[in-house]
């Protein structure tokens, strides 16, 4: 968190206990959310006895044992210190800025790390797509981002190569607010050539991640961060994405969260019905698997 921001004792505690909870082994996102719903706060989870945890009816025996075993906040405190040093902010599920209707979403993270200028309303238009995109795809992404900025919408994307980077760039160049959701800690840049872009985003927008500082990008972390992109997006534009591509997983989450998805492949959408109204294509196979 930024040094000038003053957290009340309660807020600090909740941040610390949330960090502690995310660090408990074998307790996943779903269990974390259930626990907080049951006990009201992460602090209560920390203070709950073994019997209470068992009675909550949302954990198995291993998980209860893990929680009882892991009751130590030293690591969480360390993490908070590290974030302060690296100027990384932390927001928890009860923070005003925390994307509110997401706390209802049962697998959403309970805590987010951020760098940049946070706002109360982070939601906006999601623009995602292929890393190796076509020239048309690039132009589409830029136009969509520009339009979103003109309509006062935030531009949400994943700071990946290709479409993502163009969406962010267009938002910044047109003076808009853009949110980049990372698949690694907020203190590193992946891919490396986006360091300039990342700095610009931090200057005018927000870099958001569920991963603690120092977490390197992993194969699984990108599909994970995609659910945050989906959650933040009121409308999701998917550009140049092939079947089974990484962006498909974002669509999957977007469907789950009941977002509007517009696919634009090879500029088809732009040709048929103007730039912003694309073709709604749902991959039935994927939908069925949900």
């Amino acid at each position: 968190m930024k040094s000038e921001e003053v957290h009340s004792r309660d807020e600090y505690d909740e941040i610390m206990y949330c960090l502690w909870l995310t660090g408990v082994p074998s307790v996943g996102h779903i269990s974390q959310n259930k626990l907080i719903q049951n006990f009201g706060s992460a602090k209560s989870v920390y203070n709950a006895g073994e019997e209470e945890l068992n009675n909550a009816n949302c954990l198995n025996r291993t998980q209860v044992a893990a929680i009882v075993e892991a009751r130590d906040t030293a690591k969480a405190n360390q993490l908070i210190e590290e974030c302060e040093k690296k100027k990384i902010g932390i927001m928890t599920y009860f923070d005003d800025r925390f994307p509110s209707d997401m706390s209802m979403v049962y697998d959403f993270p309970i805590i987010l790390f951020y760098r940049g200028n946070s706002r109360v309303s982070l939601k906006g238009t999601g623009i995602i797509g292929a890393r190796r995109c076509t020239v048309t795809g690039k132009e589409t992404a830029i136009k969509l981002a520009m339009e979103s900025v003109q309509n006062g919408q935030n531009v949400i994307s994943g700071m990946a190569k290709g479409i993502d980077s163009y969406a962010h760039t267009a938002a910044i160049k047109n003076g808009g607010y853009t949110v980049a959701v990372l698949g690694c800690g907020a203190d590193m840049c992946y891919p490396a050539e986006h360091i300039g872009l990342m700095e610009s985003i931090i200057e005018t927008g927000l870099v958001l991640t569920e991963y603690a500082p120092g977490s390197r990008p992993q194969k699984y972390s990108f599909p994970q961060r995609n659910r945050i992109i989906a959650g933040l997006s009121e409308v999701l534009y998917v550009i140049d994405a092939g079947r089974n591509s990484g962006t498909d997983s974002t669509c999957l989450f977007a469907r789950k969260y009941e977002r509007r998805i517009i696919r634009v492949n090879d500029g088809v959408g732009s040709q048929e019905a103007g730039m912003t109204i694309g073709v709604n294509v749902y991959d039935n196979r994927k939908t069925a698997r949900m």
Partner: protein
Amino acid sequence: MATVVKCFSVEGIEGHLVEIEATSLRGQQQMISVIGLGDQAVREAAERMQAAIESCGYEIPHDKMIISLAPGNLRKRGSHYDLAMTIALLISTDQVTVKRDRIDNCGMIGELSLNGKLRPCNGILPMTSEAVRIGLKTLIVPEENAKEAKSISGITVHGMNSLQDVIYYIEGRAVAEKEKKKESTNEDNLKESNLAYGMDFRDVKGQAELVDAIVLAAAGGHNILMIGEPGCGKSMIAQRMPTILPLMSERESLEVTKIQSISGLLPPDHKIVRMRPFRAPHHNISLNAMIGGGSFAMPGEVSLAHNGVLFLDELAEFNRSTLDSLRQPMEDKHVTISRVNGTNCYPANFMFVAAMNPCPCGYYPSSRCKCTDYEIAHYRSKISGPILDRIDIQKDVRSVDYFDLTRETAAPSSAELRKRVEKARKIQQERFTDCEGINCNSQMTSALVQNYCQLDNESTGILREASQRNGFSARTIHKLLKVARTSADLDDVENIRTDDIKRVLRCRDLDRSNRNMYTVGGEQ
């Protein structure tokens, strides 16, 4: 009194006289002691000498022998002292009676094999130069090095095969007569040039615009960067650069040959180098190999390319620190290398030619390229600003269609292009006769640019418009003016024309391409 035999050491690209004396001390244990700050090779010379002396039927004295290489404070390295040391030893032990006129004004260079044969050595040319400078009359070198030594006039060079031949010669016996017949005059050697390079610009087809830019670069001494996809002919064109550069003057040839001589790059039986060197180091080259180094500071690629072309293919793949180390030699035209064992200064006046792909995959801007703009910007940012600043001409190389190539009519030959280049260079030399250290347009100072690069109103208008559109810096405009001056010189016109400005504006392809990148932050 001990007889002095003359040999030479090489420091940088200059030779220095080394006087070798030998003496024997009676009543001490038998050994050969070599003094005078020699390296391992000089110390091992004692063993080679003993074997060679035995095999020629002479005797190793049973006393302590001291062989001194003077001056004693100068470090000496290499095996070429063997011959002079052996002769000094044989004379001091009275096994050889010399004719004074054969030894007094004679230098001796050569390594000995165990059976008394003479083996070739490096650095013959700078040593010969020094011999001429201090006024020696004759020089004895191994047969393989004779032609190299003979490329310098003013001294009689004897190429010899064995220690025995040398002894016969200094004793004044018949063998020397046989040698004399072999001698050819030094002047003939100079004329015999190795111009046969086997490459010609006639082979470069379908690249008229690029060849035009190359001629422009060669005529004004401008550095050039070629950007193009793999296989479009960048390296092919660069290899042909030396064929259109003006012929080297005798002084330049000697400089180049000296550098190659001390680096051991001259093949045996080689004469003076007449072709401008073309050096194309691979991109994994280390900083020391590029600039020069080693504990005894040998010349690096920048010096080997002296008076010629240094071509860096795949410029973006070079180590950044290696590239940045080029900044100083590109500016000063020489490098100074300091090591514990001394400081050497090598010339490094080269024309810098570089080639790179436009993007990591190599195919931008064709549809085959799938690189993102950030990747491309990152790739290009590997070449630091100061290096790019020293490159006047950046030219796109378009790929050519092979089947069109076969139909293409003949392209201009190297000889034709060289004529144009030489004409333009001559104009420049006349222009800068009063300016110390400036030979060509690329070296003009800002005052000279003001003086010689006046534009008419129309040209100024074009330049201003292009500058506003592209955001040229003052330095870039200066560069453009210099190239425009060369362009006018090529056509032998007094003032820079509008056509020159237009031509020059077509030589900033990388700038133009960089502006099309859709990125924020970083160096953009």
